[in-house]
């Protein structure tokens, strides 16, 4: 029963992961990725990690929702009426992906993996809680502070008001001496309204 479920979920995770790069609408792509994450989360639940598994589903549902929203924002082509071909160095990528898979699988098959399963009846969620707020508190809190820094950084980066003036005007730092030439690199010429989405190469 567990084995059948595992096989089905793995197949779902891999298939939907593959479909991410094969569908013709980015919203569909991000929800395919979400399906892949949900399958992995359920596998984690099968592997006796109920907190991690369900938290993965929870987090990824939110993350992929935001991703899909960005898709609609940047490319309002929700239903894929317009074609979508946006790949480059295709052969190289296929080779790299296959190589990574083959290498990792070989490593897995050839190495002698230790076998020490989770003991029956272990309170894994309670253990995790004690670990998070006990011995590994520093790591956990560091992750928290990193997330806070990320939030602030993300807001600063994406806001209209850049560090040195409006960001879409191409903000340039002030000179090192009063009235001097701007420090740092000159922004790219044209600043362009040359259009994006060039189609397939």
């Amino acid at each position, binding site marked *: 029963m567990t084995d059948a479920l595992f096989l089905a979920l793995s197949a779902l995770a891999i298939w939907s992961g593959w479909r991410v790069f094969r569908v013709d*609408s980015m919203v569909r792509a991000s*929800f395919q990725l979400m399906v892949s994450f949900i399958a992995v989360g359920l596998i984690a639940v099968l592997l006796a990690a*109920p907190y991690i598994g369900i938290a993965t589903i*929870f987090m990824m*549902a939110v993350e992929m*929702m935001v991703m899909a929203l960005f898709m*609609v924002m940047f490319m309002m082509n929700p*239903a894929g009426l317009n074609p979508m071909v946006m790949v480059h160095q295709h052969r190289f990528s296929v080779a790299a992906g296959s190589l990574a898979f083959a290498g990792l699988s070989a490593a897995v098959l050839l190495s002698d993996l230790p076998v020490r399963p989770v003991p029956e009846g272990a309170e894994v969620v309670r253990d995790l809680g004690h670990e998070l707020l006990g011995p590994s508190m520093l790591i956990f809190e560091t992750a928290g502070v990193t997330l806070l820094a990320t939030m602030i950084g993300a807001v600063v980066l994406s806001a209209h008001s850049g560090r040195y003036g409006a960001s879409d005007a191409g903000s340039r730092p002030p000179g090192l001496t009063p009235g001097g030439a701007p420090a740092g690199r000159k922004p790219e010429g044209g600043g362009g309204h040359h259009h994006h989405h060039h189609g397939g190469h």
Partner: protein
Amino acid sequence: MIVATLALLLALPPLIWAAAMFDRIGTGRGAIVMGPIRNGAALMLRPNTETEAPDRLNRLLAPGWYLALALVGLSVVPLAPGIVATDLSTGLVLWGACEALTVVVVFLHGWSPNAPLPLIGAYRYVAIGLPAMLLSMFVLIGAALPAESLSVVEVVEAQRGLWNVVRQPLGLPLFMALGLAITLRGPFDYADGAELAGGTSAEESGPALALWQFARASMLVAFSAMAAAAFLGGHLGPVLPGPVWLLLKTLAVMAATVAAGRFFARMPPARMLTFLWVVLLPLSFVSLALVGVEVLE
């Protein structure tokens, strides 16, 4: 486990009917008892509509997913001591995952017909639904703190002495904001509101629309049962048997949610977004901090 699942499946249709009746009370339309059934039957006999270049699969599945999420969310609520359909040590997290996926499903429902008004409803809803969900997680962590467990069974058991609604007075009202959001009603109905002519369901008709409304009502039932378990002591209560208490509390929360949906006006989304982030989320932090202080003592 099987007993609990069967009991839930048997109790759900009458509760959904009750939810639909609550929605009719006070609208002056009469036929409170039979009206919802008749209208549902009439809807079932109408055809589904086609739109141009839709995402057929997601359009077909979205109402079903919504219903499934309501069922999964409902399954973690214990009906009586020892009787629960999904006895999971992380029941509250599972409920949170259902909330998050509800936002996704509503988005899919609005996105898949490939029409402007549903799409506007869909992404407006996401902008409001995500912070509302965040808020509910803080409130639910507050409910889990005294129980020292993420299991809903333990959360109910920990309320034997005192219900959480007394211990954390801010919890239930804040949680009801989420209830309004995931059941698409009143002040949080940014998906299906009148100013978008039905929003995400503007292009639906027939059985698809009937199923969507059915799922929306079952989500109200699931939310109310969850609120009853997390804040009103679930099946705990004197004299009457446990399931009856749970039923009564669920009905009370349902009525309160419907009434709140009727009473509070819907703000324009930008205003609501500010209100959520600036007022409601900090309130939920305060609530959580107060619970923490109380538990430490």
